[in-house]
């Protein structure tokens, strides 16, 4: 029996108003529908209707179909009369097997209310009906429907009023997963030609029906190594064995490009440049006492799910930043929500489990206002989502994931470039807090013991997310599987998270814990098995969302909200009953051993038998070689203008500069009561590059978080691109009050076509800069991640093949500890008559700047130039150290780190923030630049803009020795933003209101 509980809102519904965008639409009514597949009495259904609606604002109707008590006939409730007249109805629901969080809640409510269980095929499904009044034809309605749903995960039905009346409503669809195949294990024959092997690597194992299972992303040398291994074993591998090796050896999991020897760098980019930087810095710091300002604060770097530094005597702070690019291109909402709750699990999976205390995001996108159609398939098939849909989707995804998890999101950024149109970059990060010791044991040390149970905790496994890890190691083209898409369930994870970090952890109920992310069980279990020396898994014990999954699918599925734990036998009962009482599913799925083998059995038969050594270290070494041929660009010829008012206003509306407050104010940054420096600062609510939180309310200490990235600089030189990213990430934090000696950084490399030697050449240069600048600043890397194939290979709107590769992007995220949260500084001007200073030197460095990009667009050209900012770490370090002292003395009233858009943008932001006027004279700006516009828009690194109380002038100036600074102006009470040029003439003269209006205009209607 199938029943529909339909909920109508009886008073003004703001959700409906939002959809009334088409002018032909007269009115819209929304109906929330819960389709229940279970035999229930009418009285019970009525009770359910009442439980899932509010009588003050809503009405519900029940309609049932099928088996008793209705004897297979439709119950005539004439539901259309309840709604009144309309013209069209669109119903949108999920496709079978897609995570449906709302239905999950309704099911729980019903089970709790009647103390019953849903069994077998019984279930609840949610959908939403949009009733439209207005004279629209079917095409127009279809267009509206298309804008509301994503065919990869949802279905949409259309009916006109007549049909609706005739059918007595929308019909009864229960999108149950039906898998009729009997799960089997098949052999894979690798004794085939090289061509065949290549094909297997690219498209996957062949199913009995001839279809392909999806990419293994194993190249031919890897497959040959696997073939030889099984030749020695005198048998063909099972499908699960090949799939498992593909996961463990994937670029996504093993980071082969960073690990393999490259040119003369025998130990690979990661060890040679990133890890060695941290080791060298720690060595130097180890000469100082741990507790001193110069001491080593690193605790756990590179070997766990997050990196950790010392917070205070009792706690550690962890940080991890991930990307979720490929899934977000296909289902932006699902991709982003899965990304953020996934990186939360990197926090829960740090040591014995850290508590997430802040989320972090960054979206690299194409201009959402420009519509360009792209197709994955030939002949205009498999259309990609528009940039606007992608942007809205990823924003909503982080909103849902972060807000529902109760984790504040105080910091993030947007970056726009046309080359993100094929594949967006979605960065998500999480900061965690964990006591240094738990029950007398160091919390960051964990070890699964032989004999411990392998326990899967949290959600169940379905077909979602199969081949996620191998998929993201490939470029996006027509073979990309939609099963790679998942939708996160933040509440299931919240229950799990609370049960772990607020209860089980401190009771020491488990020996080890890790996240089920890429590669699912195949990666998490075999990874943890390294700690004990082996494992045996009984796969049929794994709880499934629906029956019929193949064993290999269970093993590699990336279904969300799951952790893997090792639980000692004697603690199992206590652990299990705690989890039961918190409604968190815990299942023993195997046992850790010291056999040296990773074994998987299914219904009593061993289906995977691989040596741990081979599984983890058997992959062949690939020798990478690089080339490097820098491009020389023409220097743009930009006419000098006398009046730069319009130039500034044009700059402030640019996507890379403008306010994105609509995002900042929909991401909860006040939850956990830890906000200190919020994402929007000052009266003008200006987006800040740096935020500060207070993760432990008992302490005056704070955590500062910021970032730096300059994708456009990669056009000129990735070495200086990386250097600028590092300097910016450090400088932003310092400008807000961070101690430059107490900062750590994280690297996220997002590259493209990384099998091309020229691209590898640019990667190598960026990695070199990482070593050079991290060591110069004494700022260690503590964690990182890379995503190497951000390319789109498809077709444009004319069906012509196109390749879009992202600009090589390095995100550097910074994190530091602030001794006293009272000593931090916001970006807004505060008091009339305060003095304005610029610290650091301005140079002729406009290569790949926002100014060149803007001037180029004006004349329909791409202006790049060559004079990219170069970082003088030695001088900057000196300046940052003195700046920190000035903040400790309360000398700094406001401060802005000068970044994209240069001095002009920094001045505008501080003025808008304080809603105060300024008068600034460019002659006093330190440096030798000879053009007004170049001074204003140069992006030289190492500069900070501050205001100070004029009575502190002497103390302030005495504080800075042997560094560049200039007293450039003062704060006015006349609301006028005035800049005097080199020729002593006013070159900018605008009202602060005009600046604010421009700054906030671009996303005004978002």
């Amino acid at each position: 029996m199938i029943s529909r509980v339909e909920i109508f809102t009886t008073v003004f519904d703001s959700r409906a108003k939002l959809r009334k965008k088409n002018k032909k639409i007269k009115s819209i009514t929304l109906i929330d529908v819960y389709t229940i597949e279970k035999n229930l009495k009418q009285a019970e259904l009525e009770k359910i209707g009442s439980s899932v609606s509010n009588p003050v604002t809503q009405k519900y109707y029940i309609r049932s179909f099928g088996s008793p008590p209705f004897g297979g006939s439709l119950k005539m409730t004439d539901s259309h009369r309840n709604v009144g007249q309309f013209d069209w109805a669109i119903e949108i629901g999920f496709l079978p097997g897609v995570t449906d969080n709302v239905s999950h809640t309704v099911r729980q409510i019903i089970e709790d209310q009647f103390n019953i269980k849903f069994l077998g095929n019984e279930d609840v499904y949610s959908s939403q009906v949009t009733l439209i009044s207005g004279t629209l034809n079917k095409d127009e309605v279809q267009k509206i429907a298309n804008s509301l749903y994503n065919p990869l995960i949802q279905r949409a039905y259309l009916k006109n009023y007549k049909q609706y009346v005739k059918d007595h409503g929308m019909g009864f669809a229960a999108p149950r997963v039906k898998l009729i195949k009997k799960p089997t294990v098949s052999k894979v024959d690798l004794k085939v030609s090289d061509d065949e092997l290549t094909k297997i690597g690219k498209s996957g194992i062949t199913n009995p029906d001839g279809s392909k299972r999806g990419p293994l992303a194993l190249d031919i040398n890897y497959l040959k190594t696997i073939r030889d291994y099984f030749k020695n074993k005198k048998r063909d591998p099972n499908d699960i064995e090949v799939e498992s090796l593909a996961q463990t050896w994937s670029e996504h999991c093993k980071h082969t490009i960073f690990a393999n020897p490259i040119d003369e760098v025998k130990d690979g980019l990661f060890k040679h440049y990133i890890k060695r930087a941290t080791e060298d810095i720690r060595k130097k710091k180890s000469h100082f006492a741990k507790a001193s300002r110069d001491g080593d604060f690193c605790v756990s770097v590179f070997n766990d799910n997050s990196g950790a530094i010392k917070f205070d005597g009792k706690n550690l702070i962890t940080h991890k930043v991930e990307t979720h690019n490929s899934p977000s291109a296909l289902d932006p909402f699902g991709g982003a929500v899965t990304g953020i709750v996934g990186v939360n699990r990197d926090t829960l999976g740090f040591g014995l489990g850290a508590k997430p205390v802040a989320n972090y995001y960054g979206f690299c996108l194409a201009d959402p206002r420009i519509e360009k159609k792209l197709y994955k398939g030939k002949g205009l098939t498999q259309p990609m989502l528009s940039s606007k849909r992608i942007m809205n989707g990823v924003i909503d995804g982080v909103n849902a994931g972060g807000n529902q998890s109760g984790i504040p999101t105080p910091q993030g950024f947007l970056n726009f470039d046309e080359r993100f149109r094929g594949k967006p970059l979605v960065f998500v990060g999480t900061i965690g807090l964990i006591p240094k010791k738990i029950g007398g044991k160091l919390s960051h040390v964990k070890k699964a013991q032989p004999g411990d149970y392998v326990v899967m905790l949290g959600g169940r496994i379905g077909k979602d997310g199969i081949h996620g890890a191998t998929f993201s190691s490939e470029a996006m083209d027509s073979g990309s599987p939609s099963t790679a898409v998942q939708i996160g369930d933040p509440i299931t994870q919240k229950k799990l998270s609370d049960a772990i970090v607020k209860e089980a952890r401190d009771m020491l109920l488990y020996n080890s814990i890790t996240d089920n992310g890429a590669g699912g069980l195949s990666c998490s279990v075999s990874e943890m098995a390294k700690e004990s020396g082996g494992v045996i898994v009984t796969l049929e014990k794994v709880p499934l969302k629906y029956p019929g999954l193949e064993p290999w699918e269970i093993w590699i599925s990336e279904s969300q909200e799951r952790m893997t734990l090792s639980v000692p036998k004697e603690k199992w009962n206590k652990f299990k009953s705690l989890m039961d009482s918190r409604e968190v599913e815990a299942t023993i799925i195997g046992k850790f051993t010291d056999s040296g083998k990773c074994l998987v059995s299914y219904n009593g038969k061993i289906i995977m038998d691989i040596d741990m050594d081979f599984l983890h270290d058997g992959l062949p070494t690939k020798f990478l070689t690089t080339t490097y041929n820098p491009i020389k660009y023409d220097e743009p010829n930009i006419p000098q203008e006398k009046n730069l008012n319009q130039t500034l206003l044009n700059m402030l509306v640019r996507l890379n500069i403008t306010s994105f407050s609509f995002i900042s104010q929909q991401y909860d940054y006040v939850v956990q009561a830890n906000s200190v420096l919020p994402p929007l600062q000052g009266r003008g609510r200006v987006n800040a590059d740096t935020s500060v939180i207070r993760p432990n309310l008992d302490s005056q200490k704070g955590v500062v978080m910021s970032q730096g990235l300059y994708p456009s600089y990669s056009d000129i030189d990735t070495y200086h691109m990386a250097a600028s990213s590092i300097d910016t990430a450090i400088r932003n934090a310092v400008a807000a009050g961070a101690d430059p000696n107490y900062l750590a950084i994280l690297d996220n490399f997002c590259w493209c076509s990384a099998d091309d030697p020229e691209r590898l050449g640019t990667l190598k240069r960026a990695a070199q800069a990482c070593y050079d600048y991290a060591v110069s600043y004494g700022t260690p890397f503590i964690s990182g991640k890379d995503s190497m194939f951000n390319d789109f290979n498809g077709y444009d709107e004319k069906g012509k093949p196109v390749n879009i590769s992202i600009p090589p992007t390095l995100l550097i995220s910074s994190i530091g500890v602030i001794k006293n949260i009272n000593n931090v500084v916001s970006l807004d001007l505060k008091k009339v008559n305060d003095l304005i200073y610029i610290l650091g030197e301005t140079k002729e460095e406009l290569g790949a700047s926002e100014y060149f990009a803007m001037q180029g667009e004006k004349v329909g050209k791409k202006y790049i130039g060559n004079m990219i900012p170069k970082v003088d770490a030695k001088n900057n370090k000196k300046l940052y150290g003195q700046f920190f002292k000035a903040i400790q003395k309360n000398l700094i009233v406001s401060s802005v780190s000068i970044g994209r858009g240069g001095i002009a943008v920094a001045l505008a932001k501080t003025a808008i923030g304080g809603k105060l006027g300024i008068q600034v004279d460019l002659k006093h700006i330190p440096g030798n630049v000879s053009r007004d516009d170049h001074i204003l828009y140069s992006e030289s690194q190492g500069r900070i803009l501050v205001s100070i109380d004029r009575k502190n002038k002497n103390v302030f100036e005495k504080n800075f020795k042997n560094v560049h600074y200039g007293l450039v102006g003062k704060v006015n009470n006349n609301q006028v933003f005035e800049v005097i040029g080199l020729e002593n003439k006013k070159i900018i003269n605008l009202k602060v209101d005009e600046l604010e209006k421009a700054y906030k205009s671009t996303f005004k209607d978002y």
Partner: protein
Amino acid sequence: MRKPKVLIFSGYGLNSEVETKFAFDVAGGNAEIVHINDLISKKKKLSDYQIFAIPGGFAYGDDTGAGNGYANRLRNHLWKDITQFINDGKLIIGICNGFQVLVNLGLLPALNLKYGERELGLMPNEIPRYTVRFVDLKTENKISPWLKDIKSLTIPVSNGEGKLYVTEKTLKEMKKKNLVAFRYYKGEICDYLNLPASPNGSIDDIAGVNDETGRILGLMPHPERAMFFTQLPNWPYLKEEYLRTGKKLPEFGPGLQIFKNGVNYFK
């Protein structure tokens, strides 16, 4: 004098229990976080406490209406204990998601003390999106102990479904009986941030409601998220004012008073 015992509910996606406990403890209470299932399994007893608080969060993901899922669970399992708690003259507070739970449970406004009937709706905001910002609240309420000595309050809202709806008849009754605890108004922080008074289009700008005894309070904004000075959006500006006039920076923020009132009721 013994510290009054405060129970802070947790579980199923509530998420502000830690800072709410912190606020009650700072205010002089003895607060304890208790998972709802530990009350259902009788591991803990509601009657052992003088105050219970349902904190903010996203219980059941806001599905089927914010607060509804958690309210159903309370109604199904703990209804008797809750009515006893009310009859014993104890205090109840629901903040944000907690307010939504109390409303769906029919504890607010509970006209004529008829607890259990739903008379209020908290709907998607006027702009149907999660909204975080500071607001100014004022109160003219004279009957609720939670509001003692409070005339106005600057604290943040942070919700997706905070637009309060009642029928005109109910509204009239509520006004007559002093059941409007807080209204949004354009005060100091709205001026500072240049924002309108109401963040969500609530009827009559209502931000919080109490029952006829005054002992049950529900409000959308979060007092615990403005318990420290450094949580205020204008604190860096105020810090400069304090420094230049030679004054010491305050440690606490305006939100703390509500928790103090709750605790002091039993002292």
